């Protein structure tokens, strides 16, 4: 599967991870072109159903990036995200998808390099996992 080019979705929160992604861009940190960002105000507003929808329709991997614990712009949002997503990962496992296709991480507005690292690692991981088996099954 050396020519497999994953399609990946990332939900980034406006205050931290989206800003961190911007900083990575401004710093010209290069990374693989597989990740598409959807901006949300808080990682805690990301419904698991978005993740399930994306993965069930053939997206190869989903990233949810929020502020570091304790730094959420909306006080406690990321605590909820932290509780919610391990559960979502478990559900993926139950339905036969590799849990590693969903990753939750924390990137602050000052962490351009971390953003680059997370993207690069995740793309490599998804490449190893191969295409989403549900790609062929889409209606």
């Amino acid at each position: 599967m050396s020519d497999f080019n994953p399609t990946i979705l990332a939900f980034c929160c406006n205050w931290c991870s989206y800003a961190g992604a911007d900083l990575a861009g401004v710093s010209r940190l290069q990374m693989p072109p597989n990740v598409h960002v959807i901006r949300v105000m808080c990682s805690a507003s990301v419904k698991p159903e978005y993740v399930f929808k994306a993965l069930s329709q053939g997206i190869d991997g989903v990233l949810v990036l929020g502020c570091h614990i304790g730094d959420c712009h909306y006080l406690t949002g990321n605590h909820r995200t932290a509780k919610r997503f391990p559960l979502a990962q478990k559900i993926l496992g139950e339905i036969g998808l590799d849990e590693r296709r969903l990753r939750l991480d924390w990137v602050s507005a000052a962490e351009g390099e971390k953003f680059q690292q997370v993207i690069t690692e995740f793309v490599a991981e998804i490449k190893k996992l191969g295409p989403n088996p549900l790609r062929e099954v889409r209606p």
Partner: protein
Amino acid sequence: MPRIGVFICHCGHNIAATVDVEKVVQFARTLPNVVFSSHNLYSCSEEGLAAIRKGIEENKLDRVVVAACTPRTHEPLFRRNCERAGVNKYLFEFVNIREHCSWIHAKEPEAATKKAMNLVAMGVAKAALLQPQTEGESNVIPVALVIGGGIAGLAAASALVSQGIETHIVEKESALGGMLREVHVIGPDMVDSRTLIDEYVKALERSPKAHIHLSSKISDLSGFIGNFEATISDGRCDEKVKVGTIIVATGGRELVPASGEFGYGSLTNVITQLELERRLARGEIPKSAVFIQCVGCRQPGREFCSRICCNASIKNAIRMLRAEPDASVSLLHRDIMSYGTAAERAYREASERGVNFIRFGLDRPPVVRQDGNRLTVAVFDENLEQELRIDTDLVVLATPIVPVEDVKELAKLLKVPIDRHGFFLEAHVKLRPVEFATEGIFICGSARWPSSVSECIAQGLAAATKASIPIREGRVIIEPITAYSDPEKCIACGNCVLACPYEAIEIVLFDGKRKAKVNEAKCKGCGNCVAACHNDAMEQKGFDTRQLGAMIDALIKSALEVSQ
């Protein structure tokens, strides 16, 4: 049927050098609901904005998508531009194909172009489902809060009260003045720091608008621009104050050298700059001294230059030589940072008074040894390419300014970012140096970056200007990204009430049934309630389920179907 116009920006060659803009323009035209697509060299220029307005008028567009840089800078500009052309501000969608695409995939133009197309497809899908919105307004409490009573905070507070704005200034020490109290003479004009501090303190003490809180800290903070609530604690009791805007001016502290570094702590008469200030203030002028610059900075682990230390050492060297013209002074450095006019003159004066400026390299630091009751400094002079040995009575270590110890706590309370050194991160390092991305909170002085006295004052005043504007206007615009509940679907389980960090949701009676209701004035648009709702009753304006779902569908169609 929506009529969407898509405008792809070249951004000079920032986008166009990597992304094939023409291809993206063509692609955009094929997307559902797109009736017009075009490109601009610089969309944010007057020409670009006029071209967008023209596109709106000529094609009767009712939604606009701009694919360019980051919405975090230019979204307000493009929204206003839409409004000017008669399109509701919130029927505008911004797609980031620069920071998130052309700049980070510079060596993969084909893949970057494909990704830009995917992102535009997602933006168009969302735009089709946007709803027109009206902005709300919130009041602004006409009171300001300045956290920190050093020179930056003093300048900020005095500027605010002189404009007639009620201001609280909170200082953790028992007196105002901060680090400047320990620096008795300010270079290069050799101004007495006490006089400078007193001028500002007196202005505050005289003003009925100023509330000075000494030996106090901020122990709690909540709210948002126009309506913050801060708890000021002095160790015995707490005072809650309501303020409209906040200025952070918590300054920095002198880094204490590591034990043994250049003999610090183990040899006598190896001291820091502030310790030298104390000695000079007491009239103890040494007959000889060696300054060592960049102690603990401009090295791995702490790469930054602390900006003011060269000038501080030069100032003190001149003070010593004015008092003791025959004193022997050497200044060991890795660059002299006497930028500007007056500092450069002072450098010259120091040299003319006989200060020996010796350049050393990071790889060969000076070595300080005890020699009887004196000290010896061995240093490899890079210019002479020779090892020198200097006998001296005193070694002064110029260490950097670093953030105060509790900066992380304060950053958490305010929910503002700090960088890895602990300096506060401003909204934009070039054009918004005294603002945070969070509205209503501002930053000045050495808490942001080591700054000279005049720079601290300028930044304090600048922060005061920024902090005064919302107070003067009396109101702030509430962005219409608040949440709302569909009573048909709501089962009043109360999850949203618990999820809301701002207690903005209540269960009320609606048509005789219990339903969740969002208080728009309190809602901050975080969307926590949306994900907490089990019945899909809660939605967030501008980020609703249908819109995000459409973005996912569009990505799949654009990225996957083409390759099938």
